[in-house]
């Protein structure tokens, strides 16, 4: 072991060299107050601008401000960057930055043996140690022998570094996350300028002092690491190969908000966004309330029922109603969603799933609302369900949901989750011109208008706008006669209308492109994934396929209707397995639909799969 102190590497003086790596996972962890989210996103920006592929995931505490120094108060940011295509924030950690004892205690188990461990000594005082029940100081009792410990006096050095800029006390201390950033920049050989520019852009006007101080802190950290040869070796991760185009870094919730705005501007109809705040979906409301000029009317309702009911009303009023929540809120919306099913109005329901049941673990992810999306309404109530695979895909999926809702006059459920919503990745910016257009305006000739006449291709009814002369119509949640929409209690009519509502949703299958299976096109094992498990499932399948196994992977974007070719594809494999972050809901749905055996690998730990565990799983199913 080689302990590092401010005086440099004890009893060791060899020069440091630079090593090439394919990928690296860093985790920045500290107290909520330590600004680790900023450090993480700065490093992310620097990496994407440099040209690495990246995948990130923040891990906030549940409390707004949990008590300082406690485990509950730890805020972390995981960053996976590489010279090749990656899809997950990384299984294990190569470098752990722990600003205090709590951060160390919480994340050390995920640090690879031999991994680098950068800590701020100031975070390991008697108090901090006591709060997390460390009997002795791990920095000194040798318990960290398996790791490359780099203990730095970050706090005092930061304070010293920013004094010239004119910062002192708490404010000076606050810059320690930038000092740390400097250290890590040195370790991974990152250019500093882009970050400096960024900081200047953001603060220079309002708070020039802060700007200067932050820059000074970064520089100080960098220089320190350099001058005293903090690391024997530093590392470099080359550019990744992306297909050409313009990129940005994007989180799922932001992409979702932009997808809704895109629907408003491409459809030419406004969007009414009725929502009630809830973790982890609130950011979508926040983003959209800034995008009013795109024709998005945001309405923060008094509760979830008003949020969805107003959206349904808006759709009757002639603009696209969208509502957004997470599990508990979606449950509350179920009765009103059913009104949209019965009246056949367009509606997009965004569910950023979280861990449950009930309040559950609001800040943790889960994809366990699939069956509620399919069946969580009274009586026979079919609804199309779509789920994005990655943060960036949230954009096109929610846009597609909106397009389908209008074309088929139906509510569409969009299933994102906390992992996708808060996670981020580089995103190739789509060309707005290339987005599919919206399809409505059918059946509105007053002479022949019938509120419940159906478009033969889609099975959808027409979408009249109140205020139009001659299209006056009254709709109701009561069963209605075909075509006329008059209230009807007729036995046979009810059965025909029920079938028509199912047929309409079934017709959406014609919008689903042929499925393309990765890997073996037939053989021993088919891996089916949906939503946020895409990245881990595909990467693991790749790994196993490259070992020469007869394994294929197919990701499902539409959960209802299922791809028309899915039934045949499944038949081509000896076994089918579905890894999902729930107790086996898609597996159940596939068995229920096809009446064949489907294996389920369901884990509910409030976190995403690691590639490693899936590789193990697939191999175990292949013996």
């Amino acid at each position, binding site marked *: 072991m080689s302990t590092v102190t401010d005086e440099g590497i004890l009893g060791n003086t060899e020069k440091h060299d630079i090593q090439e790596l394919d990928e690296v996972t860093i985790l920045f962890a500290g107290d909520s107050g330590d600004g680790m989210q900023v450090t993480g996103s700065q490093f992310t*920006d620097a990496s*994407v*601008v440099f*040209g690495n592929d990246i995948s990130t995931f923040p891990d906030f505490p549940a409390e707004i401000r949990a008590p300082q120094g406690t485990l509950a108060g730890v805020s972390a940011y995981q960053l996976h960057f590489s010279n090749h295509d990656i899809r997950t924030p990384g299984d294990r950690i190569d470098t752990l930055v722990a600003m205090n004892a709590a951060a160390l205690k919480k994340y050390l188990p995920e640090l690879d043996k031999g991994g680098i461990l950068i800590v701020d000594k100031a975070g390991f005082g008697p108090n901090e140690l006591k709060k997390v029940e460390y009997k002795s100081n791990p920095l000194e009792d040798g318990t960290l022998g398996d790791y490359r410990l780099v203990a730095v006096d970050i706090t005092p050095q930061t304070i010293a570094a920013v004094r010239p800029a004119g910062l002192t006390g708490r404010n000076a201390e606050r810059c320690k996350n930038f000092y740390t950033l400097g250290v890590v920049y040195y370790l991974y050989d990152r250019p500093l300028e882009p970050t400096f520019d960024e900081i200047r852009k953001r603060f220079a006007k309002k708070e020039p002092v802060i700007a200067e101080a932050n820059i000074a802190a970064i520089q100080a950290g960098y220089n320190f690491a350099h001058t005293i040869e903090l690391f024997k070796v530093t590392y470099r991760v080359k550019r990744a190969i992306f*297909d050409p*185009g*313009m*990129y*940005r*870094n*994007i989180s799922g919730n932001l992409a979702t908000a*932009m997808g809704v*705005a*895109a629907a408003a501007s*491409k459809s030419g109809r406004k969007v*009414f966004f*009725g929502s009630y705040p809830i973790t982890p979906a609130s950011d979508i409301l926040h983003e959209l309330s800034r*995008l*009013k*000029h*795109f024709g998005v*009317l945001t*309405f923060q*309702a*008094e*509760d979830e029922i*008003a949020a969805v*009911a*107003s*959206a*349904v*009303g*808006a*759709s*009757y*009023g002639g*603009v696209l109603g969208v509502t957004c929540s997470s599990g508990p809120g979606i449950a509350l919306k179920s009765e009103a969603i059913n*009104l949209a099913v019965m*009246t056949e109005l367009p509606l997009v329901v965004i569910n950023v799933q979280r861990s449950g049941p009930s309040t559950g673990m609001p800040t943790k992810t889960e994809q366990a609302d699939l069956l509620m999306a399919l069946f969580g309404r009274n009586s026979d109530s079919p609804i199309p369900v779509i789920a994005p695979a990655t943060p960036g895909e949230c954009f096109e999926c929610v846009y597609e949901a909106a397009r389908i809702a209008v074309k088929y006059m139906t509510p569409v459920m969009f299933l994102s989750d906390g992992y996708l919503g808060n996670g981020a990745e580089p995103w190739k*910016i789509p*060309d*707005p011109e290339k987005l599919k257009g919206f399809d409505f305006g059918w059946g509105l000739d*007053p002479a022949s208008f019938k*509120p419940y006449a159906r478009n033969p291709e889609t099975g959808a009814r027409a979408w009249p706008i*109140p*205020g*139009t*002369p*001659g*299209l*006056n*119509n*009254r*709709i*109701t*949640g009561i069963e209605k006669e075909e075509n*006329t*929409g*008059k*209230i009807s209690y007729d036995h046979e009519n009810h059965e025909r209308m029920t079938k028509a509502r199912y047929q309409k949703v079934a017709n959406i299958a014609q919008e689903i492109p042929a499925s393309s299976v990765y890997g073996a096109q037939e053989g021993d094992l088919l891996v089916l994934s949906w939503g946020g498990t895409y990245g881990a499932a595909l990467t693991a399948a790749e790994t196993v396929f490259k070992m020469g196994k007869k394994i294929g992977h197919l990701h499902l974007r539409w959960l209802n209707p299922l791809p028309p070719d899915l039934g045949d594809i499944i038949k081509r494999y000896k076994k089918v397995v579905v890894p999902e972050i729930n107790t086996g809901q898609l597996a159940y749905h596939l068995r229920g639909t096809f009446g064949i055996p489907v294996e389920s690998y369901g884990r509910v730990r409030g976190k995403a799969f690691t590639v490693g565990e899936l590789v193990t799983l697939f191999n175990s199913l292949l013996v």
Partner: protein
Amino acid sequence: MTTTATDSPKAQTPQDFHSGLIVRWCPGCGDYAILAAVQKVLAERGKAPHEYTFVSGIGCSSRFPLYMSTYGFHSIHGRALAVATGVKAANPKQEVWVITGDGDCLSIGGNHFIHALRRNQDFKILLFNNEIYGLTKGQYSPTSRFGMVNKSAPYGTIDEPVSPIKLALAAGATFVARTADNDMAHMAETFRRAAEHKGSAFIEILQNCVIFNDKVFEEYYGVKTRKDTLVYLHHGQPVLYGKTVEKGLAVDGFNFKSVDASQKDQVYVHDEHEPTGTVANMLAGLSHPESPVPLGVFRCVERPAYHEMMYAQVESARKANGEPDLGKLLKGPKTWTVS
């Protein structure tokens, strides 16, 4: 639910506002008169049926929109006001009327009621108050009287009833009135006033349910006695009542008392605009038999309507951010190019 083929741009007769659907309330139900009064008033106003949207929840009363030739949404129980919020926001030019019952509006729908009013959503809200759940065959509602015996309270209701008017005032309603299903002229007059009001216009209609709560208002709104048991509010006029208009209401501490009409200086002159809302609240407190029950407009004040402010923000956002540019939005603050 069917379209009226003929939707004359300027409708002239109440008939033009009838959807043609057979009206299915019990014979003798107060709802018939209310429907007639609304159709009468709309016919006078000259707007065409397609310029109106009627929204309701579920209940006997909530069937109302199905009988109108306008646009209409018979939605789900308790959500009429929430649904109407979207209709108006989507389509601000539509004149939106909301039809609701004492259960629909004040029981399951109570939350939407408070919030629609404080936002001053631009709806004409007609509350059909029959002090009972009609459609479900006679359980007590939030306005049912204390001790009332009914299907779900065989030993009598132990819930203190709520005053729709007081609740509306507390929620910040800008127009609050009361009328009765047995007084065509007064209903028409009140609906006219509501139609002219910008923002939430709330009207409690005393409505008789002949089947499950017959004659519940008879004691004071009965044609024979009402001159003595009701009092009509007219802005700017002294509040007088009685067979020979011989009585008046005068402020007495924190309440009203009945005085001789001759005591002109004492009789309260009604001010719909009274800024604090105190007087409207005091009037709302008057109940039978202690005092005459007020009918008419309790309060009428000005505030911007919700949809106006909503669209004003869209406009200012447009001004602030310039024409929406989707491409620019997607790019965001920081991009990089791979070639």
